[in-house]
């Protein structure tokens, strides 16, 4: 589904991603872990071109994302992204947050989008917040809404960048639960997270990034019980 070939990214002369190759298959739940500054966010953001790679190619569903004059807006419609800081549109109500993109991109009529928004809000038990503004919500509520906002576009893959890192501990559970539900429904997911429990339980594959390269990748069982890379062993001993 997503092919990454020889991807590199430098900021100035800081090489953040070095020659990464990766392939994400339909239905996979890939969890990326690694120390701070190892390039996890940058890698994820390259996938939908929020960061412009310095070199290499990314192909999604047969379309080259990195093509110089490709229609990136069209590609992004099928790649949902969830951010650490939610990034709900502050000037719009919850319902309008969900409706904006499908309506503006003419994928749904206003009525259809409204119906879909309410359906999604019921899914996360937040239908009573439909007319609230983002400032009126808790972090956990914001993140669940950010997730269903992406879902309204019916994406083929969802990218998560530390979706629970900005949350108070008591709200982490509700967001992880929603992500598990998505995983169970067969969504293809790429998740950067520090939640090792989630990685163990949900991932079909875990990647360890360090210094801009993928140092190790394996099934969660092997990854956590028999880490081979020394840096990964160090990393796991710190976080587990």
């Amino acid at each position, binding site marked *: 589904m997503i092919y990454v070939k020889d991807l590199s990214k430098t900021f100035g002369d800081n090489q953040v991603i070095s020659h990464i190759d990766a392939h994400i298959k339909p239905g996979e739940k890939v969890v990326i872990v690694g120390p701070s500054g190892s390039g996890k966010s940058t890698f994820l953001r390259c996938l939908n071109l929020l960061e412009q790679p310095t070199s290499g190619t990314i192909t999604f569903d047969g379309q080259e994302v990195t093509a110089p004059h490709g229609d990136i807006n069209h590609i992004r419609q099928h790649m949902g992204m969830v951010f650490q800081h939610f990034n709900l549109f502050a000037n*719009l109500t919850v319902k309008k947050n969900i409706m*904006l993109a499908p309506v503006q991109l003419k994928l749904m009529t206003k009525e259809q989008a409204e119906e879909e928004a309410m359906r999604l809000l019921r899914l996360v038990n937040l239908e009573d917040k439909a007319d609230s503004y983002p*400032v009126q919500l808790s972090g956990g509520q914001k993140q669940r809404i950010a997730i269903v906002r992406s879902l309204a576009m019916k994406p083929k893959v969802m990218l998560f960048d530390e979706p629970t890192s900005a949350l108070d501990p008591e709200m982490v559970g509700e967001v992880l639960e929603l992500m598990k539900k998505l995983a169970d429904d067969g969504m293809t997911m790429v998740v950067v997270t520090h939640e090792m429990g989630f990685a163990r339980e949900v991932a079909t594959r875990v990647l360890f990034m360090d210094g801009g390269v993928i140092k190790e990748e394996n099934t969660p069982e092997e990854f956590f019980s028999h880490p081979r890379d020394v840096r990964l062993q160090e990393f796991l001993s710190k976080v587990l």
Partner: protein
Amino acid sequence: MESIKSGFYQTFILDNNYQYFIRGIEITLLVTVFALVLGLVLGVLVAIIRSAHDQQPKNKRGIVLRVLNLLCKVYLTVIRGTPMMVQLLIMWFVVWASSRATDGNMVRCAVLSFGINSGAYVAEIVRSGIMSIDKGQMEAGRSLGLSYVKTMRFIIIPQAFKNVLPALGNELITLLKETSIVTVIGLKDLTKGAMIVVANTYQALIPYVAIAAIYLTMVMLLTWLLGIMERRLRKSDIR
């Protein structure tokens, strides 16, 4: 007491002098409102071009964008670097030199001058508003597949506008008061009206104090209206 009474009589009643004030208010408001609209349109456009240029990575800036950005920079530098009165004089005595001195021509010239001038200040105000919006808002819009322009229009500009409304209000109030310099091209705005009355009646106190009070009233009205608008826009901040 008697002299004030006769002063009022001469200022407003004699020869239907009140008409100078009524007509003056009309002209002042006309120039202000149209210059405001022109200034906003120009200002928002320039602000968008400037921030699009600054937000785009260097290698993705098209030649068109770079040329537009350069033009905007020249515009901002020239307009903010020269006095309003000089701009107005050039507009009327150079650009409009071959036109007859009708009210219509003068109003059009004034609207254009003040609009162009105001646009430069509005542009910098709006740009600072755009820059103040968290970049996550743009990223969220773009990650959903919305274009740069659509994200600007539905997400960034409304929030930026709300943040800079007080500053824009100040700009509008300044504009209203500054229109009094159209007297130099002979347009009969409120100030010019009072000057004519003073010349006809040989007394300055009441006409000038009167227009001061009229300007003040208009500014207070504007301030009140802006306050209402601001509270409306703050809706999304209520916790």
